[in-house]
C-alpha cells in the first residue's frame, strides 16, 4: 500500500518536474530570443544584424572590443530612430575564431535567426571560410577584416568591407615614409596565413617601388608560442625590422624580441599595432620599444587637436584618452580596428535607408545601394576620418597613421593621405549576378 502511494508521489513529482522543465524551457528560449516573438508579429519587427564575433579562440581580445563598439553604435542608432523607423537588433554568435564555425554561424543567421545581414568579423581565415556560404545564402556580409581578400575579387558580391582600409592600401601608403625615414633594407616578420601574406606581397612591392628591398621574409606559423628561434634569421645588414603578428602569443613575441636585441645595436623597428593591440605599453619588458614606430589605423592615445567626433566615439564606446576601458585602465582596446565595427553599422544604415530596405526580399537592392556609395565624410558616424569607397571592389580607403613610442605612449608623427593608398582595382563585383 505504502509502496503504491510512494510510486504515485514519485509520478506526481516527475510530472511536476516535467512541467517545470517545460516552463523553464519556454522562459529560457523567450529570454534568449525575444525578437523571435516580435518577428512573428509582422512588419514592425526589428532590423536584425547578425554579428559574427570572435568571442573565444585566438581572436578573443579583438572580439571583446568589436562587441563593445557594435553595441554602442546600435544603441546610438536606436536612440535616434533606428533604420527606416524600425529598431535595430544585434544578434551575436561566437565563431570561436574558426573558419568552419564561422560558416556555420552564417548559416545560423540565414536560417535560424533570419537576420537581415551578417556583419563584423575580423580574422582573414574566418572571412574567407564564411564568405562562400554568405554568397550561396545570398546574405549580405559586411566584414571588418583588413585583409585584401575582399578587394582582390576572390570572394563574392555579397561581401563588403566598407568600414576599414585593406592591408594592401595601408602598406602601400606607408612604404614611402618608411623608406625615407627609417631605412630601405627591410626584414619582415609576419603571420604565415592570408593576412600576413597580404603584408608580405604588398609591402615588398611597395618598398621596391621606393628603391628599397626586403632582405629576408620570416613567416611565423599561426599556432606558434615561442619566437626567439626566429630572430637569428634577421640579417645583420637589416635597417628596418617590420613586424606584424596577431593572436594570443603577441606579447611573448614582442618581449622576446626585446630580450634578443638586448642592449646591443638593433635595427629600426616598424611594427603594425596588431602586434600590441589590447596590450598595455607599460607592461614590464616593453621598455625597449621606446623610439620605435607603429602603424595605427586610428591613434590609441588621443592626440593634440583631437576631433569632437573622436571624443564622442570614445565616450560612447567607453574608451578613455589612453585607449583603455573607462572601467579598467588595464583593459586596453583594439582601437586601430574596432572603429570599423562602429562605422560599418552606420554604412549599413545608410544603404538600407537609400534602398528603402524592408525585408530579406530587398537584399539585392541593399547590395546595389551599398555599391553606389562613394564617400563617407569625417563625422560622428565616421570618427576615424574621411573615406572613399569603391563599389566595384567593395572596399573603402582612408588615412593611416605612423606613431612613435614616446614616454610609453604613441604619438602620431605622420598621417598618410587617402590618395597615398589607392591602387588600380583588380576586380569588379558589380558584374557578378545577384
Amino acid at each position, binding site marked *: 500500500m505504502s509502496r503504491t502511494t510512494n510510486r504515485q508521489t514519485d509520478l506526481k513529482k516527475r510530472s511536476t518536474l516535467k512541467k517545470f522543465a517545460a516552463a523553464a524551457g519556454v522562459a529560457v528560449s523567450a529570454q534568449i530570443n525575444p525578437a523571435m516573438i516580435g518577428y512573428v508579429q509582422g512588419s514592425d519587427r526589428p532590423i536584425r544584424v547578425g554579428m559574427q564575433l570572435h*568571442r573565444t*579562440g585566438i581572436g578573443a581580445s579583438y572580439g571583446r572590443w568589436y562587441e563593445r563598439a557594435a553595441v554602442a553604435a546600435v544603441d546610438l542608432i536606436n536612440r535616434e530612430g533606428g533604420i527606416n523607423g524600425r529598431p535595430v537588433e544585434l544578434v551575436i554568435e561566437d565563431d570561436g575564431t574558426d573558419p568552419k564555425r564561422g560558416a556555420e554561424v552564417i548559416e545560423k543567421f540565414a536560417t535560424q535567426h533570419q537576420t537581415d545581414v551578417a556583419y563584423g568579423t575580423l580574422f582573414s581565415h574566418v572571412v574567407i571560410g564564411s564568405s562562400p556560404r554568405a554568397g550561396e545564402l545570398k546574405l549580405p556580409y559586411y566584414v571588418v577584416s583588413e585583409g585584401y581578400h575582399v578587394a582582390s575579387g576572390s570572394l563574392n558580391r555579397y561581401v563588403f568591407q566598407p568600414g576599414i582600409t585593406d592591408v594592401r592600401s595601408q602598406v602601400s601608403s606607408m612604404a614611402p615614409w618608411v623608406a625615407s625615414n627609417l631605412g630601405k633594407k627591410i626584414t619582415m616578420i609576419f603571420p604565415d596565413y592570408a593576412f600576413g601574406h597580404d603584408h608580405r606581397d604588398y609591402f615588398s612591392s611597395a618598398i621596391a617601388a621606393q628603391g628599397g628591398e626586403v632582405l629576408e621574409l620570416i613567416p611565423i606559423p599561426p*599556432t606558434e608560442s615561442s619566437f*626567439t628561434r626566429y630572430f637569428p634569421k634577421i640579417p645583420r645588414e637589416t635597417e628596418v625590422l617590420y613586424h606584424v603578428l596577431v593572436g594570443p602569443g603577441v*606579447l611573448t613575441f614582442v618581449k622576446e624580441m626585446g630580450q634578443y*636585441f*638586448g*642592449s*646591443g645595436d638593433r635595427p629600426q623597428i616598424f611594427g603594425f599595432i596588431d602586434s600590441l593591440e589590447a596590450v598595455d605599453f607599460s607592461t614590464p619588458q616593453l621598455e625597449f620599444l621606446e623610439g620605435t614606430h607603429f602603424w595605427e589605423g586610428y591613434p590609441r592615445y588621443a592626440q593634440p587637436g583631437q576631433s569632437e567626433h573622436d571624443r564622442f566615439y570614445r565616450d560612447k564606446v567607453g574608451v578613455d584618452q589612453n585607449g583603455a576601458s573607462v572601467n579598467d585602465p588595464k583593459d586596453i582596446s583594439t582601437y586601430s580596428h574596432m572603429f570599423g565595427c562602429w562605422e560599418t553599422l552606420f554604412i549599413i544604415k545608410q544603404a538600407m535607408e537609400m534602398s528603402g530596405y524592408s525585408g530579406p526580399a530587398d537584399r539585392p537592392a541593399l547590395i546595389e545601394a551599398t555599391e553606389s556609395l562613394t564617400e563617407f565624410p569625417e563625422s560622428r558616424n565616421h570618427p576615424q576620418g574621411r573615406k572613399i569607397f569603391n563599389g566595384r571592389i567593395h572596399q573603402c580607403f582612408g588615412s593611416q597613421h605612423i606613431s612613435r613610442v614616446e614616454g610609453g605612449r604613441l604619438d602620431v608623427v605622420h598621417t598618410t593621405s587617402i590618395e597615398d593608398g589607392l591602387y588600380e582595382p583588380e576586380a569588379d563585383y558589380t558584374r557578378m549576378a545577384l
Partner: protein
Amino acid sequence: MDLGPFLLLASLEGLVQAAVLSLAALGLCLVFGVLRVVNVAHGEFYMLGAVIAWWISYALFSHPLSGFVAALIVAPVLVGGVALASERLVLRRIGHNPEATIVATIGMLYVIQQGVLILFGPDARSIEPPFYFRIDFPWFGYSGYKLSVILMALGLLSVLWYVISRTRLGLVMRATQLDREMAQAFGIPVDRVYGTVFAVGAMLAAVAAVLIAPIRQVHYLMGLDPLLMSFIVVIIGGLGSIRGTLFAALLIGMSDGIISMFFSPTLAKMVSTLLVALVLIFRPEGLFGRREP
C-alpha cells in the same frame, strides 16, 4: 649571425624546451606505465596549472617572486586534487579499461578546457617572471629566467628520480607497474596507487606549466601543443620507460631547437613526427621500452 653563437642560442632554446617537456612527458609516461591509461587530458592539466599560477600571482601576491613560489606549491596541489577526483569519479568506474579511458579522458579534456574558458575567459594573460635579468652575450641577449627554468627542471627531475627509486612510494609504484596482480597479492593497495600516480602525473604537467608560464602566455588553448609533444616524446622513448622519456625529451627538445633555427620550425615538427612513425614501424616498443613477451 655566425655559426657559433647561432648554435649557442639554438642549444639554449632547445634545452629550455627539453627541460619543460621532460617534466610534462614524464607525467604522461608514469600514468601510462602504471595505469595503462592514455591520458588525452594531460595537456589540460598543464593548462590548468598555468591558469592557477596566473590566478595566484595576479590575485593573491603583489610581488612576482612570492607569487611564483606560492604557485609552484599550490598549482600542482590543486591540479593533483582535480586529477585525483577525476580518477575516482571517472576512470575507476570504467575499470581503467584502455579504450574507454581514451574516450573518457577526451571528455575530461573538453570539460576542463571549457570550464577554464567560462571561469578564466578567452584572453591570453601574462605572468611576470619571479625575477628578470637579461644576460647580454656579445651576439644576442637572453632571458636569465629562461636559463633558470633549465636548472629548476633539473632539480625537480632529481627529486622525482629520488622518489621513484629510493622511497617506499616509488617501490610500490614500480611494483604495480611490473605486475599489477602480483602487487595486489603482496598487499599493495593497487587502487590507491592508481589514484596517486594519476595525480602525480597531472602534478608534473602543472609544475612544467608553472615554470613556463612567465615565458609564454596563459591561455585556455595552451594545452594542445604540450600534449602533442609529450606524446611524441613518450612514444619515441618507450611507453612507460622513464629513462627513455628523459632521453627522448632531450632529443626532441634539442632537435626542435636546432632544426627550428637552422631551417624552420615546421620542419622541426615534421622531423619529430617522422621519428615517431619510424619508431612505431621499426621499434614499436620505443627506444628504451621493453618488448612485450
